[in-house]
């Protein structure tokens, strides 16, 4: 029975490692400037954690195979000093690994969440609500109209609570249900939530950030490829959560300018 267990441990270890090594289950191709660092960090984490995983599983299998109870009446052998040094050693080893990975990873994480956005970044407001995303561009005047939550009126496409009757800066604001972006231009999103917590997740950008009602959360990135990818909500936000999504449409600069002009004409 002990030998069968050892074989199962080896098979599980080899199969699960092979799945990762052959990248059957892996992230989709990166399309952002920040993604390179994240992918490198991810690879380093997977390699170091993977090596420890494989070694520890093989040692476990070896000990089970070699020293399992064979029913021959041998007394159970104990490591010198008992299990305590082993547990301490393992804890220190794994703890050191986590600390090192965290310290190394902090640089990449801070590069996304703590660094200042490019001052020339294209600013876009995002409104998340049950169960859709809406995106607002400042229009020709380059200024966003003030948001008035009490004026939010979905039925009339006033998803941001704008007051164009009294606020002239709001009149040319462009609101879209898709996140349309120019390729290779820095983007600064300001995340707003109308009702409950939501999340902005685009695996191809390697970005995931929660929306929190009452907070305006900045998120910046640069898309490097012309692609159309899905934005999904990854915080369970209610009945229609499964259907809360939008599309990120990254296009060449010229095409983006045309899209903006078309949108402006509809305001």
């Amino acid at each position, binding site marked *: 029975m002990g030998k069968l267990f050892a074989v199962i441990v080896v098979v599980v270890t080899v199969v699960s490692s092979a799945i990762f090594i052959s990248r059957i289950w892996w992230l989709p191709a990166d399309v952002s400037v920040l993604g390179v660092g994240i992918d490198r960090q991810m690879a380093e984490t997977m390699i170091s954690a993977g090596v420890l995983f494989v070694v520890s599983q093989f040692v476990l299998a070896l000990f089970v195979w070699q020293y399992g109870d064979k029913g021959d009446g041998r007394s159970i052998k104990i490591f010198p000093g008992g299990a305590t040094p082993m547990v301490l050693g393992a804890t220190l080893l794994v703890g050191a690994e986590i600390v090192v990975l965290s310290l190394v990873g902090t640089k990449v994480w801070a590069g996304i969440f703590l660094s200042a956005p490019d001052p020339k970044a294209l600013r876009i407001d995002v409104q998340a609500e049950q*169960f859709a995303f809406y995106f607002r561009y400042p229009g020709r005047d380059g200024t966003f109209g003030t948001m008035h939550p009490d004026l939010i009126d979905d039925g009339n496409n006033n998803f941001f609570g704008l007051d164009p009757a009294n606020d002239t800066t709001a009149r040319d604001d462009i609101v879209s249900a898709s996140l349309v972006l120019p390729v290779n231009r820095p983007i600064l999103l300001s995340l707003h939530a109308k009702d409950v917590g939501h999340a902005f997740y685009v695996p191809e950008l390697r970005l995931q950030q929660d929306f929190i009602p009452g907070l305006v959360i900045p998120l910046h990135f640069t898309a490097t490829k012309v692609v159309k990818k899905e934005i999904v909500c990854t915080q369970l936000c209610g009945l229609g959560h499964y259907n809360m999504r939008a599309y990120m449409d990254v296009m060449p600069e010229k095409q983006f300018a045309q899209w903006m002009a078309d949108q402006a004409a509809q*305001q």
Partner: protein
Amino acid sequence: MSRKLVSSLALLAAGTSATIALGHPAKNAGAISGHVTFTGTPPKMRPIDMAKEPSCAKQHATPIMTESVVAGPDNALANVVVYISAGDKSAGPATEAVRYDQKGCEYVPHVAVLQVGQPLEIYNNDQTSHNIHPLAKVNPEWNKSQPPGAPPIKASYTKPEFIAVKCNVHPWMHGNFAVLTTPHHALTGQDGTFSLDGLPPGKYTVTAWHERFGTQTQDVTVGGAKPATADFVMKATPY
């Protein structure tokens, strides 16, 4: 759905209202007819982006527009509920159900006109779930989920009220229930015309309600030498 089809459905709804009105015949019945228009600049209607719901988006060759103001030729105003708000002695609500469809992630008709106590049946014709949420303030408020293929949701209201309707899954979906006490009501189509039939001679107050431009009333006498008419001119603002 094209604007033409929407207007056709609105006209169909108006026709349905007229049929309901004829369901209560009276001796020497007269009618009040008229035309609803607007002055000023109405707000621009905007295309609705349904990209997140491909099963609905593909039902529309071109994006449908928001419908809070649907204007016809010569400033005619559609989706105006015109009804007798005083002087109507008709008794009892109509018994036939008013049908309200969710089709292509749009409410058809945009305004459902029904009487207090009259049954309302709400259908989901789409391949996606809807969650219909009439925002009643006088009547009890409810919201109900309706998956594809689910039987119609049946409801009725006990008090007169204009109720905005939204879908909790598709934020752009917007419609209205006009719950009235009178069986004499009509919904204007894109030509802005209406006719309230089956009215016995007498004095009436006619009210016109539009979701954006509010209400107007007129006192009208039926049974005089001239045919009774009531034209309404709503004041439009761009924002």
